[in-house]
């Protein structure tokens, strides 16, 4: 993937005599790539462009607005309550990530580096949850947070912060990812740390974590997108807009507000901005993280 090792195919063809086919092939590849890229990026262009139009302009389907209506963003942010939804999502995402980090680092370490009875059975149970469709767990979970199965502090968690965070502060995927990495930390490091009198917790914090930035970053990125993009569960768990996160807010705006395309698109852009910022900043880690998870499977 790196520059140094890249492109076996082209290294080979560089040495071969470049036939006319080579150039025809190149042109074809560029044409396909550019054409495809235009199709792929068009919805984003359209979203941004429409978000700056007047309502009239969105109906006549111009490609770009005559005068960019920046006021649309103000309207969406204030009147359409996207500010509230946005802040809800920020808080829910931060809470989920904090919990997720703690649970998956601890469990990943235990599964990767500590021997205890029943370890493989528990790990197997965890992994099994990755195959279960949400349709199966959704209904009991809904009853649970409504306080109908277990007694919960405060009767019902509907429309609370807890309903949106607590079920997601641990998942098998993150634990699996970290376990794979932690298990590869050389045993010599652990032996040395133990001679210095460190226990597992200190070893984990002082030695393992500093060298595990890449997998932790992957867990954070997956956790972030998962939490920010969450839709089905928050749709059930929020009936009022007290804790309604941005995706449910956007969806109910479609249902309730009627054809206010310009504001809708402004809301869509607002909902996309955090994801875009994170994605552009961490592009390398993001794609690499996804690639490694793919190959492990």
């Amino acid at each position, binding site marked *: *993937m790196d520059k140094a*090792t890249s492109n076996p195919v082209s290294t080979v063809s560089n040495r071969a005599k470049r036939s006319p086919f080579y150039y025809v092939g190149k042109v074809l590849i560029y044409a396909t*790539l550019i054409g495809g890229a235009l199709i792929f990026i068009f919805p984003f262009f359209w979203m941004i462009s*429409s978000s700056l139009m007047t309502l009239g302009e969105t109906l006549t389907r111009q490609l770009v607005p005559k005068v960019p209506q920046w006021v649309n963003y103000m309207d969406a942010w204030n009147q359409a309550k996207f500010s509230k939804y946005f802040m809800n999502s920020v808080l829910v995402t931060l809470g989920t990530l904090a919990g997720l980090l703690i649970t998956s680092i601890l469990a990943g370490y235990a599964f990767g580096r500590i021997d205890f009875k029943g370890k493989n059975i528990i790990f197997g149970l965890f992994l099994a949850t990755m*195959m*279960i469709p949400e*349709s199966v767990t959704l*209904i009991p979970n809904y009853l649970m947070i409504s306080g109908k199965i277990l007694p919960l502090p405060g009767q019902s968690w509907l429309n609370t912060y807890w309903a949106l965070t607590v079920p997601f502060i641990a998942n098998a995927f993150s634990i699996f990812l970290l376990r794979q990495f932690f298990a590869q930390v050389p045993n010599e490091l652990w032996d040395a740390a133990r001679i210095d009198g460190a226990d597992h917790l200190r070893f984990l914090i002082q030695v393992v974590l500093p060298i595990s930035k890449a997998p932790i970053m992957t867990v954070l990125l997956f956790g972030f997108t998962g939490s920010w993009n969450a839709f089905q569960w928050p749709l059930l768990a929020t009936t009022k807009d007290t804790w309604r996160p941005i995706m449910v807010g956007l969806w109910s705006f479609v249902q309730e507000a009627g054809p206010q395309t310009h504001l809708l*698109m402004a809301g869509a852009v607002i909902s996309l901005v955090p994801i875009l910022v994170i994605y552009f900043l961490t592009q390398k880690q993001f794609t690499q993280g*996804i690639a490694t998870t793919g190959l492990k499977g």
Partner: protein
Amino acid sequence: MTEASLSSQPIKTGTTLSKLKTREQVTGYLFVLPAFVIILVFGLFPIGYSFYMSLFNWRVTKGAFIGDANYMLIFGSWTNFLITVAGIALIIASFWLWNDAFKSVSQRQQIAKILAAIVFIVGGVIFVTGWGQMFETGNQSFLKSLIITLYYALGTVPAEVILGMILAFMLYQDIIGKDVFRMIYFLPYVTPSVTSAVVFQIIFSLRETSIANVVLGWFGISPQKWRFEPRPLLNLLGLNLSGFLAGPSLALVTIMLYGIWSFVGYNSVIFLAGLGNIPKETYEAAEIDGATKVQMFRHITMPLLSPTTFYLTLIGFIGTFKAFNHIFVLWTPSARDTVVTASVLIFDNFYKANQYGVATAQAIVLFMVILGLTLAQNKLMGERVFYG
């Protein structure tokens, strides 16, 4: 490992060693505990509870115990169910026989092939009979939702895998700006489904001025109703098929396009990583032997990528059978039930119709279907995968 290094330290006596071991155990449990509690309560317990609920006449609150009645609503009767399963089992067995045929010597090969064909036909007939009876006496809307889920899977997963592979192969060449291309193609995957669905709603709206209809206009095709169109695409094209052969509605095809747009980038990133793992010596050796590029792609790249292809197909199928957001957000009442996949139907039965017992039974059946599909794919495709 740890035990070996422990015993290598001479000072330890038996008692302190076992003490240390106990401490190790306790630390292990304590570390796993927080994750265990959450996954147990919100991931494992609900599976059992779902099954429990499916045995009751459970609307908003728990009603009478009705045993398998919710399941019988789906299948009609156990006989129907068993006939259908037997048919599927025979079909799988025939594939297995067919595969086996190529491993054995010439004489048996012919017999095994003929046998496989017979078993396949018999299995097919039994399956169709069982399914037909289920469809008559069981829950048509759920059974239909399974077919729609299958359409959705067959219409998206192969396209995503093939396009992803081609894209990865192109991006792997000596290309200027490959990082930019990769970023653009990957962008839809990270975009929240509600956000992109909102845009697709407008691009594929039924207005004559919608982008999709304008593009059709360039080719002289009259405007379509896209995600509002419950009629099958093939019928719109003039082929008058009916039943399963009529294929997905234009509304579902629209959602498929959306699904493909969302996931191609993901597949190509995984394929790119797979391509990076193929040693370049292989290509050099092939070139010395005078292989053309097409031959190299066919005989080196494709076999060496087969584990990746297998993985992507597998998670693709599991993903489409679980899919909810992508379909739910583009669903309009005008498309009727032609886009209602199993998970959307289950959600509807629960959320709108308050049929908790029925919905949980359907969810359990969906889970079984996914499980069966995964096992079958492992069996059938897994054997053909070439692990370098």
